[in-house]
């Protein structure tokens, strides 16, 4: 087992990689938000949006929907909704699940 302690890692990083420090500064100017982090996602308008929001946000924020869209199509969303209901116990009736599926398939399907 080694016993070494880290030595001023931040200063070393800056000394060795000034370009990276610049990158941070640039990114900071563009995108850093004040604490605390916030829900960033407004789901697209469309039939079924309200029920989708109300059921999904019980357990998770909404970023998961657009961030997963490139990997999803109707079959993928069907599998995902089934997992949420059967494995994680998400409360949604069959009718609500169908509305959520129609909404996600229509608005967040990036996979051919």
């Amino acid at each position: 087992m080694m016993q070494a302690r880290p030595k001023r890692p931040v200063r070393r990083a800056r000394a060795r990689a000034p370009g990276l420090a610049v990158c941070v500064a640039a990114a900071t100017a563009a995108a850093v938000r004040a604490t605390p982090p916030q829900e960033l996602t407004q789901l697209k308008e469309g039939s079924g949006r309200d029920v989708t929001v109300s059921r999904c946000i019980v357990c998770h924020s909404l970023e998961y929907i657009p961030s997963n869209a490139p990997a999803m199509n109707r079959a993928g969303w069907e599998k995902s909704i089934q997992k949420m209901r059967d494995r994680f116990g998400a409360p949604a009736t069959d009718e609500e699940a169908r509305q959520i599926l129609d909404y996600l398939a229509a608005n967040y399907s990036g996979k051919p």
Partner: protein
Amino acid sequence: MLSRRDLLLAAACGWTTRRGLALEAPASPEVLAALPGKRPLLQRALRPPNFETPLPALVPAFTPNDAFFVRYHLAVIPSVDPAAWRLQVGGASAQRPLSLSLRELRRSFTQASLAAVNQCSGNRRGLFSPRVPGVQWGNGAMGNALWSGVRLRDVLQKAGVASDALEVVLRGADSAVLPTTPDFVKSIPIERALDESTLIAFEMNGKPLPHWNGAPARLIVPGWTGTYWMKHLTQIRIEPKAFDGFWMKAAYRLPTGAFPGSRFTSQETPETTPITDILVNSLITGPLPGARIRRGTRVELAGKAWDNGAGIASVEVSVDGRRSWREAALGRDLGRFAWREFRLPLTSSASGPLEIAVRARSRSGAQQPDALTFNPAGYHDNIVQTVTVEIV
């Protein structure tokens, strides 16, 4: 809407490093936001919180605590009072169940420290092609830290390990919103639990564990992916049977035989098996993709290489389309489970784009592959890294 400036920033900051200079739009805008006690990190999801370390914070040998990535499955994350915290150690194969305070844990067992990479199983999932569902991580669902605590083995032996012990089951204080959601519970083989490198850590880089990284104590399973590194540890059970919870039987699994690594035979089926070892891998931290470099000037290629604890044997660099390779210089050895810095000065006499490819080789003989082995959960992206710069 993502602006071109955002895309350029994302590329400049290395989130598309391995795909070269591709200005491919990430699925969601890249946003840096600061959780309490953390510096601004890439917000992959607010709740449960999933925040990624930006590339610049992966440059230091030890990843700063306030920059270390945050990964949760379930949204109820209590602030644990270290004075009131107890660790329960029991199970059907424990001969003398016990309960320990943090003070007792510190005082009753030999202290141990080691440097180790903690890497999320899904690190780089967002770079998968074709895309797969899950948290869309870039390169920063990982970090290297010095972990200090006590050996799990010593605690288990105090509780008495019966001869029929098969797995050690781990539970933390965080939980799901709904009682119907499976709690995040994981198991490891008894042999791995008794390995001298497996720790119950209460310090990270010489400071108490940050809340978002598992305070007041978490498991450290060096060489294995982060899913086993249980945060906010509250319960350890020594069991004679394979644990059959959702997070073992249905999640964090790979096609059986598709990847190298330790076998977890009590959890294996003919079709799938739990992810275990971190595969040999590397990360280029500089130069950044698209950097404009004057012809004839020196470029310092730098980065990190790591594996499952066999240790890094070499890091090789190609600037001619992977036809010939040169060895980079390796930095200080921080321990076999830590990452190893590498460095190679390069000069180019020809103008135009220059693709730099990097591949690490482990002392086990394993080397980073050229092609991705696709798997549905998006694990184990360890293909050869490239960065393309512009020589002007």
